C-alpha cells in the first residue's frame, strides 16, 4: 500500500505542472491538456484522501469529476474548432478580440 502522502505529493506536482503549462504555452490544445492535468491532479488527491480516511465519498467525487472533465474537453475542443474556423489559428497569442 502506497502512503497517501506520496500520492498527495504526486498530485501537487501534477497540478503545478498543469498550471505552469496553462500559463506559458500558446497552443490552445496544449493549454486544454494542461487543464486536464490539473483536473486529474485533483482526482488523484480525492482518491488519496478517500484511501486515507477510508471514506467512499472521495471515490464518488473522482467519478463525477472524470465525467465532467469529459464534457469539458468536448466543449473545449468545440470552441477550438470554431476558433480555428474563424481565425485560422489556435495560437492564444493571436486571439485577443476581448481586449479593452
Amino acid at each position, binding site marked *: 500500500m502506497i502512503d497517501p502522502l506520496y500520492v498527495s505529493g504526486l498530485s501537487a506536482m501534477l497540478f503545478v505542472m498543469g498550471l505552469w503549462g*496553462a*500559463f506559458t504555452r500558446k497552443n*490552445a490544445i496544449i*493549454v486544454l491538456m494542461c487543464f486536464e492535468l490539473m483536473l486529474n491532479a485533483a482526482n488523484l488527491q480525492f482518491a488519496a484522501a478517500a484511501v486515507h480516511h477510508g471514506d467512499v465519498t472521495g471515490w464518488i467525487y473522482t467519478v463525477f469529476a472524470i465525467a465532467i472533465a469529459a464534457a469539458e474537453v468536448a466543449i473545449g475542443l468545440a470552441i477550438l474548432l470554431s476558433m480555428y474556423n474563424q481565425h485560422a489559428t489556435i495560437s*492564444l497569442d493571436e*486571439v*485577443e478580440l*476581448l*481586449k*479593452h
Partner: protein
Amino acid sequence: MSAETVSGTGLEVPSFALLIILLPMLAFPVILLLGRLFNGKEWWRGTLKEGGLIALPVMAASLIASLAIIRRFLGETSASATSTVMHWVNFAWQDAATGEIQLFSMNFGFYVDHTTVMLLFVASFLCLLINIFSIGYMNTDPVNDNRNHRFYAEFVLFCSGMLGMVLSDSFLWLFIFWELMGLCSYLLIGFYYERPSAAYAAKKAFLTTRVGDVFLVIGLAMLWNLFQPHAVGGDALAYSVVFDGANLQAIADAGKSGALQLALGFMFIGAVGKSAQFPLHVWLPDAMEGPTPVSALIHAATMVNAGLYLVARMFPIFGAEAMHGAFTDLAFLIALVGGITACMAALIAFVQMDLKKVLAYSTMSQLAYIFTGLGAALWLANSLDWHHDDAAHTIVVVAFGAALFHLFNHAMAKGMLFMASGSVIHEMHHAHHDVHHHHDHDEHHDDHHDEDHFDAQSMANMGGLASKLPITATAMLVGSASIIGLPLIGGFWSKEGIIANTWRVALEDPRFFLPAILVLVTAGMTGFYMSRMWFMTFAGKPKSEVAAHVHEQTPWIPVPLLVLIPMSLSAIVFASLEATHYLGDTGSHLGEMGLLDGFLYEMEHAFANHDPFFLVLTYIAIGLSLVVGPMAAMALYGGQLADGEVAKPWLKPFVSLSARVNKRHRFDNAALAEGSLATALQERLYFDAWYDAACEKLVAGFSNLAAVFDRRVVDGAIKGIESGSQSTSRQVRSLTTGSARDYIMMAALGTLLIALVLWGVA
C-alpha cells in the same frame, strides 16, 4: 368641517355673513367659464355685458347682506362680535408628559366691531358702484371686446378678497385675503398685458408689495410665537387671543413687549407695501396702467386701505394697559413714514400731467395722512392713561376715530374722483375717435391703432370741459374739495382731526414735530395739486381740438358719480352723528348727542376751539389748503371757458373766480418748471431710478455669484463624478487584455486569494 358658533361677547354674527364673501368668490369661476365658452356670442356681449350683468347682482347681493350685518351691529356698543364659521384645521393629540388630550384647531370666523362696520360699508358699496361704472367704461371700449369676462371675473374675486379681509377674525385670515387681493391687483394691472408698460407695471406692483409681505409674514410668525403659549386650543393669531388684556399682560410680565413691538413693526412694513408708502411707494403710480375702474376700486378706494386696516387692527394692542408706553417708537415710525410720504407724494403730484397719475399721488398722500393720524392715535393710546381718565379717553378715541373717518371720506372721494377721471378719459377717447374719423377716414381704417399717438389721459390735451361734462365736473369738484378739506364737506372733518392730533402729540413728544409740520404743509400742497388738476381739466379754453368735441354720452358711467356726490357732501351728517367717536370708541353709539347737538359740538370744535393753539392751527390749515394752494393753482392754470360755452350755475363761480385770479395774479413759472426741482419731481425724485440701479447692482451681483456657484459647485460636483468614473473605468478597462493567458492567471490568483481567505477565517 364642523359648523358651530362660539361667541365671546354674547353677540353672534349671522351666518349669512358668509354669503358676502362666498357669492363673489363663486361668481369668479362662473364668469370665467361662461366667458370662455360663449365669447363673442351676441347674448353674452349684448345682454350679459360679457359678465358685467352677472357680477352686478352678485355685488348687489353682497351689499344687501353687508347692509343687513351693518344694520344689526350699528347700534351695538359691545367691544366686538365674533362667530366661528368653520374649523379648518383640526387635530388632537395626547400630551406625553401629562397624558391629557390636547386639542388644536384653526378657525375661520367673523369679527365685527365699529371699524368693520365702516369698512364693510365702504368696500361693498364701492364694489357695487364701480361695477356699474365698469359696465359703462369697459364694455363700450372696442379694445376690450371679447375679454371683458376676464375683467369681471378678476373683479369679483378681488371683491371677495376685500370683503373677506374686512370680516375675518384673525390676522392669519387677514393675510390670506390680503394675498388674494394682491393677486387680483397683479392680474388687473396687467389686464392690457400686450402693452409692455402694463406687464412691467403689474410685475412691479406684485414684487414691491411682495417685499412688504415677506416682512408681514415674519411679523405674523413672531406674533404667533408670542401668543401661542396663551392660546388655548389653537389659533394664536385670532383677534380674540391677540387683543385679550390678560394675554398681553402675561407677555408684558415675561418681558417680551420689545419682541411684540418688533413683530408689530414687521407687520407695519407689510402695511407700508400694501398702502404704497415711502419707501415701498413706487408701484402705485405705475399701477395706473390698469383699466380706470381698477384704479378706482383697488388702487384708490379699497385694497390700498388694507395696510391702514392692518395698522388700525393693532390699536387694541397699543391701547392695552399692560403695554403702557412700550410702543411709542413704533407709533412714531408709523407717523413719520406717513408724514414723509404725504409731503413727497404731494410734491410729485405738482408736476404730473397725466390725470390718473395726479390722483395716484394724491391717493398716496392721503393714505399717508391716515398713517400719520394712526401713528398719533397709537402714540396717544400707548402713552395716556385713557382707561381711567375720561379726558384722555376722549382724546384717544377721537384721534383714532379721525384717522378712520378720513379713511372713509378718502375712499368715497377718491373712488368718485377716479371714476370721474375715467369718465373724462373715456369721453376724450370717444371724441378723438369722432374727430379723427371725420378728418381723414381715408388713411386710417383700424380703430385702435390711430389712438396710439394721442394721449387721452394728458391734461395738456384737456381744458374747458366744465360745460361739456357737467356731471363729471361736479363730481370732480366735490371729490377734490373733499380731499382738499373744504370746510363742512368730506375730508375736512377728518383731516383737521389728523393734523390737530399730530400736533397734540408733538407737544408731548418733540419727535412728532417732523410729521406734524409735514402734514400741515401737505395740506396746502393738497390744495394746490387738486385745484391744479380741476382747473387744467375743466376751466380755460380747450387745449386740443379733441377736447372741444367731448360730450357726456356713455350710459352707466354717470350713475355712480351721481350716487357719490351726495355721499361726499353729506359727510357733515356723519360728522354730526359723532362718527369720529363712534369709529374710535367701540363703547359709543352713532349719534349719541343727537344730530343738532352733535353738529354744534363739531362746529365749535372745528372753528372755535377753546384751546388757542388748536384754534390757530385750524385756521392755518384752512388757510393753507383753501387759500394759498388753490389761489396758486388758479393763478397758474385758471381761465374762462371758450366763448359760447356755459357751465352749470354751481360750476360757474369756480371757473369765473379762477379766470379773475389768473388775470390779476398771473405769473410765469417757466423758470421754476425747468428748474432742477421740477426735473427731480418729473423723475419721481429718482426713487425708481435708484431702485432700478440698486436692483441691477445687488440682484445682478448676486445672480453672478449664484451663477458661479452653480457652475463651479453644483455643476462641478456632477461633472467631477462623471469624469472621475470615466477615468476609473478607463483604468479598469486596461485589465481586460483579451489574452486568455492573463485570464487564467487572474482566475488562479483569485482562487488562491479565496483559499487564503478561507484558510485565514478557519
